[in-house]
């Protein structure tokens, strides 16, 4: 008999997982540990091996090497039992498009062994929870992407899984639907669901995950909390953007003696390390104000996971697929009026 999972058994414990497709190694000796009750995000660009990794963990693909246990159960030897403790919501809505939203949920409940009355009760609660009521009788093929995703998430929660796996849950969704998915995920996490989330959106991993594993070409590039990853890239800084090149020279002279500045001529920007965050920002702002140098912007910049990816892999995340996420101009910034 397999051992009984105890609360201290990690939700996921993978060692050296490897999957090749012909000559192509999709996942290359990846280790992964997810503690119960935590959210871990696999972050990487398209083709990094995220989905392959998830499919091995969900017993849909057999690893070529390495081993993985879900709640203490081996994904190969005890695949059937693994399937009863996990719930996978894949990258594409995993629903029967010729059934209505409610029929899909009823079918999944029945396949999970619920009798008619208990299935009705569970499905009713999920329909309420995910605001499915208004389109419960519509065929899935006629639903919008966001609506499908809600039904999809609901279908994954028929039995509360020990481990919920969401493979790119917001890819292709409009911003509003993305917010709905995020708030749902946050609720589930608050209820103590263990979650493995793959995403190519850096802000998504930053917003939802306790731990982030950066992968690229099937290998782990870095792992840690979002804060630790950002720390690997560098500290926070205050960027001062001069109005013109004369002003830039003045700025450099002004700030140079007091801080370890770095000057980016093309961006007309002087950067100042800001370990004390707002206090440093205030100091720089006061100096600039007193000197009356013309500036366009003074802002506190926190390194983002974009910076982390760029620094750790030498290329921007998803630069082929998602130019927006890698655009340095989209960094969040706290700005003060100059």
């Amino acid at each position: 008999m397999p051992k009984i999972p105890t609360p201290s058994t990690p939700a996921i414990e993978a060692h050296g997982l490897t999957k090749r497709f012909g000559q192509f190694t999709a996942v290359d000796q990846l280790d992964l540990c997810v503690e119960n009750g935590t959210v871990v995000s696999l972050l990487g660009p398209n083709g990094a091996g995220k989905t392959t990794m998830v499919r091995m963990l969900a017993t849909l693909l057999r690893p070529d090497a390495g081993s993985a246990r879900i709640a203490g159960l081996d994904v190969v030897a005890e695949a059937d039992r693994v399937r009863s403790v996990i719930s996978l919501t894949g990258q594409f809505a995993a629903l029967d498009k010729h059934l209505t939203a409610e029929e899909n949920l009823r079918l999944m409940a029945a396949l999970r062994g619920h009798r008619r009355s208990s299935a009705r009760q569970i499905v009713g609660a999920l329909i309420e929870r995910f605001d499915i009521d208004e389109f419960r009788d519509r065929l899935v093929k006629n639903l919008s992407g966001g609506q499908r995703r809600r039904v999809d998430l609901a279908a994954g929660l028929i039995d509360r899984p020990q481990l919920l796996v969401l493979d790119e849950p917001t890819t292709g969704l409009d911003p509003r639907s993305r917010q709905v998915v995020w708030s749902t995920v946050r609720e589930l996490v608050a209820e103590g669901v263990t979650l493995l989330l793959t995403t190519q959106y850096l802000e998504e991993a930053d917003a939802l995950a306790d731990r982030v594993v950066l992968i690229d070409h099937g290998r782990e590039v870095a792992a840690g909390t979002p804060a630790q990853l950002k720390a690997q890239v560098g500290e926070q800084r205050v960027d001062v953007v001069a109005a013109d090149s004369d002003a830039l020279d003045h700025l450099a002279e002004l700030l140079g003696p007091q801080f370890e500045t770095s000057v980016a001529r093309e961006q007309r920007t002087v950067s100042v390390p800001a370990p004390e965050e707002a206090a440093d920002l205030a100091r720089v702002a006061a100096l600039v104000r007193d000197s009356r140098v013309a500036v366009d912007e003074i802002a506190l910049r926190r390194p983002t996971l974009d910076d982390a990816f760029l620094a750790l892999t030498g290329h921007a995340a998803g630069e082929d697929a998602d130019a927006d996420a890698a655009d340095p101009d989209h960094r969040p910034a706290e700005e003060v009026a100059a």
Partner: protein
Amino acid sequence: MNATAINPHVSAPVPQGFAARRYVRDTLLLTARSLRAIPRVPERLLDVTIQPIVFILLFLYVFGSAIHVHGISYKDYLFPGIIGQSLAFGIIGAGVATSNDMTEGVVDRFRSMPVSRLSIITGQVMGQVCEALLGMTIVVCFGLALGWHPHLTLAHALELVGLMVLAMFAFTWAGVLFGMLVRSPDAMQGIGFIVIFPLSFMAGTFVPISGMDAIPRAIAQWDPISALVASVRGLTQGTHSTGSWQLEHPQLAMALWCVLILAVCVPLALRRFNRTLAA
């Protein structure tokens, strides 16, 4: 949204002792799922209804006047052929439905659930066989309405139905295997057109095999669909076919073909299914 609405029960592992019962239950559920699609996607029935009906009308009223078969009215010659051909078209229907299913995420969800994997395929097969039965009923009724006269004893009727159902299962499994091997539903349609279409036309369906040119005649004499058509014609009209061993013993030959097709396709389809990656 109500945060307390989620089912608080942590999923319990399915009891292992009930594997057989679970298989039956899952198969029934998944068959019902396939059947629900029929009224919602009626065009899926086209292969097994409208297409045979178009051929009936074309050959009965357009080409038929130029075809003379010795010793039997063309109407009585044609309908057994149509029945064999529409059974064979079931391969295409099953293949398209399977390759559609394989490219959808829903099969992945089933595979990641505690659902017997065999039942996912048998559910698909049962749904397709039900579709084929429905299509066949429509085609037969259409034939009877146009004046087809099968001469059946009770024993022959039972033999005929048994053989047709066996053929439906065999062809459906073959279609399921093809559907898993091809890359897209369109590719399946292509294979259907290039392979199944000619084989179903050559099988003594519309014109006697004996009058064909040497090469198509040789193919037709060992085409499984020929055995099927000859069986149906033999049982309903009392004709005797000749030309090859399988045409002289069409019922036995067809039964053997079905067993062979099932013996090859079922394990290959299951093996393939366990390896398939959805797109």
